[in-house]
């Protein structure tokens, strides 16, 4: 019998189906390992798998089986979304895109051998590695707070149980009690996030505890969409919210989780809920990989490749890329550029010039949405802003409602772009 090439391939395929363990890893397809299944990692994994049409073996490492998006978790606090509605699983990525989804922590990276070690003990090879681990907190950035106090003083800046805990604490506040937020210094995940959160907490308190107060200790002189938020706070929650900026000691804050006190510039405040959002750095795996400079991992704007190791791409919050804010939208946008670059490098597919975009919507109160956005291009130095917009103060109610409705559409869009 004459064995044609086609028949030969067919036979091999059949054999590998019947004996997957024997052939696993041994069939010569280029391997991409993605660490982190959020807006950056899930999108990158999906686009590489989808567009390489099986030519690239994609593994996604993500500890959570159910992923709760940080974006829209403030809306859960405000009562506008259920926790279920911001939870997503990885079933479609595994079943429809053929991605090997591994629920484990990556704990080691050997850049010389190009391997990733998991907490469970196994080791995986990669040709390209994509790190999209999000953020971790800087120890000691808020004196008196560490991860062991996160139950007494939740950060709720990684969505899920922390968010539920914070909401429960707010609901349990005594009438006329105080919710305090220790806001983070720049740069941090989701620039409008703390202020949207304040809006959502105020919305909830206005319904259940209208004499309660909100106190923000903020190390930054100004913040994202400040004029819009302050206009909204005045309009919807007059007198409830007080913000102490660095001019009044908002940059000199410590906490005592046992006594439930916040000390601002030497003055001790007893509070009922204390939401501490510490200073942030790249997810720890970037440090372990040895690709950080300072707190973040510097990357090339053209491909999102690490400046330190060209076999590694870093996406989203963890990267130091230039002008883009650390947002889910940004990570999703960067993921598409990285996915294209990775496919180009591994399979020779066409690579188009990188372009990026971002928009951040925030909800101030019912049907009162605001937004800020920009487009970006890649330069040799950084991701550079091209054009942008921001909502205006004094917009009419119909436009604000339309902006909120647009954000709902965006949420549905980006989560289906991430999870399939």
């Amino acid at each position, binding site marked *: 019998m004459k064995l044609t090439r086609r028949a030969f391939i067919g036979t091999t395929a059949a054999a590998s189906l019947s004996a997957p363990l024997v052939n696993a890893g041994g069939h010569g397809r280029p391997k991409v390992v993605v660490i982190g299944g959020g807006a950056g990692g899930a999108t990158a994994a999906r*686009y590489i798998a989808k567009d390489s049409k099986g030519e690239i073996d994609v593994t996604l490492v993500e500890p959570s089986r159910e992923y709760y998006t940080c974006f829209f978790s403030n809306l859960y606090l405000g009562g506008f979304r259920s926790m279920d509605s911001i939870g997503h699983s990885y079933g479609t990525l595994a079943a429809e895109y053929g991605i090997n989804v591994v629920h484990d922590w990556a704990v080691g990276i050997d850049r010389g051998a190009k391997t990733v070690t998991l907490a469970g003990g196994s080791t995986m090879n990669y040709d390209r590695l994509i790190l999209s681990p999000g953020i971790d907190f800087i120890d000691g950035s808020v004196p008196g707070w560490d991860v062991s106090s996160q139950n007494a003083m939740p950060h709720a800046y990684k969505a899920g149980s922390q968010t539920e805990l914070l909401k429960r604490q707010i609901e349990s506040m005594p009438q006329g009690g105080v919710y305090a937020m220790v806001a983070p210094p720049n740069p941090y995940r989701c620039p409008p996030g703390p202020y949207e959160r304040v809006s959502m907490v105020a919305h909830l308190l206005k319904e259940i505890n209208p004499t309660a107060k909100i106190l923000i200790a903020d190390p930054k002189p100004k913040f994202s969409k400040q004029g819009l938020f302050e206009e909204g706070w005045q309009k919807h929650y007059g007198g409830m919210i007080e913000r102490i900026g660095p001019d009044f000691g908002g940059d000199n804050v410590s906490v005592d989780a046992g006594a439930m006190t916040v000390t601002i510039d030497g003055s001790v405040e007893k509070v009922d809920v204390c939401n501490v959002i510490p200073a942030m750095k790249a997810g720890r795996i970037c440090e372990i990989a040895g690709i950080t400079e300072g707190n973040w991992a510097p990357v090339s704007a053209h491909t999102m490749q690490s400046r330190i190791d060209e076999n590694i791409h870093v996406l989203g919050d963890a990267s130091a890329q230039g002008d883009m804010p650390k947002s889910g*939208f940004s990570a*999703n*946008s960067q993921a*598409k550029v990285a996915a*294209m670059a990775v496919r180009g490098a591994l399979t020779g597919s*066409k690579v*188009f010039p990188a*372009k990026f*975009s971002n*928009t951040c919507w925030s909800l101030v109160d019912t049907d009162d949405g605001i*937004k800020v*956005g*920009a*487009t970006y291009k890649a330069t040799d130095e950084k991701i550079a802003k*091209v*054009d*942008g*917009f921001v*909502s205006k103060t004094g917009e009419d109610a119909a436009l604000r409602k*339309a*902006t*909120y*409705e*647009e*954000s*709902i*559409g*965006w*949420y*549905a*869009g*980006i989560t*289906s*772009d991430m999870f399939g």
Partner: protein
Amino acid sequence: MKTLLSMAATILFGVYASTAVAGDPEKGAKVFKKCKACHAVGDGAKNKVGPQLNNIVGNAAGVVEGYKYSKALAAQADAGLIWDEAALSEFLKKPKAYMPGTKMSFSGLKKETDRDNLIAYLATFSDADTLAAAPADEREITLSDATLSIEGDVAYGEYLASDCQTCHQVSGASEGGVPAIVGWPRVEFVYAMHAYKQKVRPNPVMQMMAGGLGDEEIAALAAYFEGLE
């Protein structure tokens, strides 16, 4: 002798003439014979294979009660398609080219005068309010034939489209204030994007996204999204 109907037609035609329709409704009535197998119009008209056509000219697309539209038309309707003279004329010229996925199996009316006459005839069954509310004959912006005739590169469009898919779902599903954009007739997509680019349409996100695109890129996106279902 004039029947009541044709008198009403004359009056309405007077209104419609102000929006610059060139057709003759009486000649249009003859053209309509080609449509009759599937469409009824006039008093008591009911849906047949196609929807009944009272009040279609100048009205929002996809609003006839009890009619199940194709996905393609429903998506366009969601996106705000108005059956004004320009849109109807484009559609009637070659329905499947204008709207891939339409259920209407009709090869089209090649002659512009036939289309004008037919639309003028159908306009006699539209309410005066509907006609008055319809946008004038002209589109919101003017595009050159050179811009409109760019043959978009589908592969390039697919790449560019990844930017759109952060908000617009590739499945054609839509939620909240973000419309579905799959299956749109190319020409509608091109006009919409240029209208954002020229800041004639108000949404700042779309103005920004379209503002970063050249004519070739808009054509590429139009070609890509038209081919999706």
